């Protein structure tokens, strides 16, 4: 697999405070990457740098192009939803389709109309009149009808209810994703995306804290559930993080042989969200 995003020492500061702090990042083609971090971790700045929307120091290449200098060219092969509710409110839905159709050579209008037919978004409605959920559905329909190689979504479901969020990611996976495409999703709601990802990238304070294929998490991390006397012994082994569970502790270890832990309790692979909390709270401590 070839890397479609390559970043080395990417840096961007606002008023002296680094938002993206010397980030190295490689994203392989065909991956579904979750960029996960708390609010203010620098996710948006990183994504905007990748899209050429904001200049950053360091080396950066997306699909072999320099994002800031070749922004317009890059946008032929990269789609993004940079924020919810950024569609022009004065436009009618059909006018919006006209605009994208006239300006994007890889846009399939019929496909977008098919997607929209399955929603409540009528062509004659004005974007400003749509509910937040419908606006997101409209934006997703537009983006999915573009034959792009890379799709970047920055908190695409922010402020939506659980039904819309579910449908959003399901549709993305069923109707859009294939081996040829790469999707990069940023969110601070880990559970939402956990089951569709192939890679996770944790970000905090402008730095990449973790960057692994999901399959590798299983071999690298173990979550041990132990009760009673075992807790004290388990806690003495260097761990990434721990939390209380009913009657004992759940402790997450990195690069510790599973068979060493099995005598102490129940071993399993930690969920991305638990791993995220463990990793991030350790970052805060250190």
């Amino acid at each position, binding site marked *: 697999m070839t890397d479609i995003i390559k970043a080395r020492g990417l840096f961007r500061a606002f008023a002296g405070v680094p938002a993206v702090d010397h980030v190295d990042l490689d994203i392989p083609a065909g991956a579904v990457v979750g960029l996960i971090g708390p609010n203010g971790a620098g996710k948006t700045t990183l994504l905007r740098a990748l899209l050429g929307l*904001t200049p950053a120091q360091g080396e950066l290449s997306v699909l072999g192009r320099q994002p800031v200098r070749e922004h317009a060219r890059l946008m032929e092969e990269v789609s*993004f939803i940079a*924020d919810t509710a950024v569609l*022009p409110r004065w436009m009618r839905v059909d006018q919006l389709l*006209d*605009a994208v*159709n*006239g*300006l*994007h050579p890889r846009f399939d209008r019929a496909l977008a109309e098919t997607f929209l037919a399955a929603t409540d978004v009528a062509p004659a409605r004005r974007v400003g009149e749509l509910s937040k959920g419908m606006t997101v559905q409209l934006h997703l329909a537009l983006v999915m009808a573009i034959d792009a190689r890379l799709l970047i979504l920055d908190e695409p479901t922010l402020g939506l209810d659980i039904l819309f969020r579910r449908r959003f990611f399901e549709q993305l996976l069923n109707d859009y994703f294939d081996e040829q495409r790469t999707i990069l999703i940023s969110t601070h709601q880990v559970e939402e995306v956990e089951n569709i990802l192939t890679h996770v990238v944790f970000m905090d304070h402008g730095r990449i804290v973790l960057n692994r294929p999901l399959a590798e998490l299983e071999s690298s991390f173990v979550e041990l559930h132990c009760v009673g006397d075992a807790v004290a012994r388990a806690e003495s082994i260097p761990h990434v993080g721990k939390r209380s569970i009913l009657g004992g502790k759940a402790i997450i270890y990195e690069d510790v042989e599973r068979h060493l832990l099995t005598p102490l309790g129940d071993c399993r692979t930690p969920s991305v969200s638990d791993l995220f909390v463990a990793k991030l709270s350790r970052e805060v401590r250190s």
Partner: protein
Amino acid sequence: MNRSRSLRIFTLLQRELREHRRAFFWAPLLLAVLLAVAMLLSVLVVDRISVFGDTLIQVIEKQADGESPGIIIRAGSEDRRGAVGIGDAEDSIDLASRPATQDVPESAWDFDLDWTFSPPPVTDRGMPASEATDERIRSLNPLLNLLHNALLLVLMIAVAQYLLGALYDDRKDRSILFWRSLPVSEWESVLSKLAVALIVAPAILIAISILLQVVTTLLAMLMVWRLDMQPMAVLAGNLAPARLLVDQIGGWLLSALWLAPTCAWLLLASAAARRSPFLLAVVPVIGAIVLESIFLRTSVVLDAVGRHLPHLTESDDGVGFYLFGPDWAAVDWLSLLAGLVFAALATTLAVTLRRHRWEI
């Protein structure tokens, strides 16, 4: 490729016109309709109360007395000098009278909304000619001038408002994040906005204006007919449509060149502003003018700005916002060129700002 390129340009312009269709299309059209209705009413009640009618009845009476063989319909009296002006009614009165059937030199006739029906000088009733005429002309000209200039004013306000918002509004409502997800370079998008301001919006206004002029011509024919004269004969001698079109379209293209730096400046303010594009456009210019006059006691900036603003008043050497025939000989080519260089710089800067510093 070629098809997709023209489709892109069409789509970019269409987007702007759709967003601003009220300012660029409906507002001038509504005004034009109001103007046409006002004139129609004048014609319909020509023999009753209107001042429009009074003037004409005077003409008819004179004709009946055998004093004047015809009526002069002189249109576009001010535009001979190239600018569209308010006032100066006295200057624009043509007191000469000729028989309607007599051939008139083509160049003597312009035609726009501004119709002057000039009765012949009153000399035999002990009343000074000029006084008597002024009174009547004043009653007609200001009304038409007002409406006509209102049409231009609507365009100028609309264009200035449009440019100040063009690179600001989408940053404010964050829809720039959507537009920039499309493969359109900032050059394309900024130039399309400049083209709308300088070419497309004025073209729409001229189209509406020409339509209005046709309506006015028909109304004039109706009026002449009601006065029991031959409409075709009167108008045929008084109208040169080819010359009219060349003047109007040529004048508008020259105006576009003159106004390019002003428009580019407004775009730059729009791209740079964090709060108010209007203040950012106006305050530095006024500041520069004031500082220059205090410290250098010169007025280079003021003169330069003055040359590239649309003039509503006419002047002999100044170059105005022509919609009806420029005075090509009076063009200050150096100032024009300097303005275009400035426009190019301001546009480049606006594009750069939009690429790198679009967040508010």
